[in-house]
């Protein structure tokens, strides 16, 4: 089954800086989603971008999707200490014979106050 695969680096940034994470996947998708997971908690949905969209904003979040390269990026602007978490991308390929919501490995982001 296909999976979103984020670049595996852990990010450590100062509060106020921007954080960028990338995600790549292997097959056609319906949409791509980003989730956040705080330590010891469940996943919380952040943003969904459809396969026919190229960019989407939600508050301090900006997501891009390049279906030709099968990649996506998540940008968090003006980071805050509360943004410290693991971030996962997930691909929804329900129309392409694949499992729903396949997740990548996640990126650990630490925002230093």
């Amino acid at each position: 089954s296909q999976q979103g695969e984020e670049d595996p680096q852990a990010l450590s940034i100062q509060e106020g800086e921007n954080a960028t994470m990338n995600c790549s996947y292997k097959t056609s998708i319906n949409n791509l989603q980003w989730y956040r997971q705080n330590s010891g908690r469940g996943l919380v949905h952040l943003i969904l971008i459809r396969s026919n969209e190229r960019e989407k904003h939600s508050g301090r979040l900006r997501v891009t999707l390049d279906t030709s390269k099968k990649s996506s990026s998540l940008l968090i602007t003006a980071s805050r200490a509360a943004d410290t978490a693991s971030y996962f991308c997930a691909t929804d390929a329900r129309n392409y014979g694949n499992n729903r919501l396949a997740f990548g490995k996640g990126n650990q982001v630490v925002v230093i106050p």
Partner: protein
Amino acid sequence: DTAVSQTPKYLVTQMGNDKSIKCEQNLGHDTMYWYKQDSKKFLKIMFSYNNKELIINETVPNRFSPKSPDKAHLNLHINSLELGDSAVYFCASSQEDRNTEAFFGQGTRLTVV
């Protein structure tokens, strides 16, 4: 009200035992999932299930079986527990026919000793 709830939150049990984890969603969603998150935080889909079909990740041992008494519940039953089953198990739900996000429970930390 909690959208997706799973119980118990923590489960410690001996090898060889049989255990169940319960999951309930009150969102009226038609699709539910079980994921396993290992110590490296990798999220692996185990099952997705709606009233039409059960999709099983072929790598999941047949000791694991989902049981759905109704549309709002998808319980996970595990037979003959092994040390390697120790992980955090997440239940999630979504609406199949829309490009929408999944909602996750808070997870069940299973420790097999």
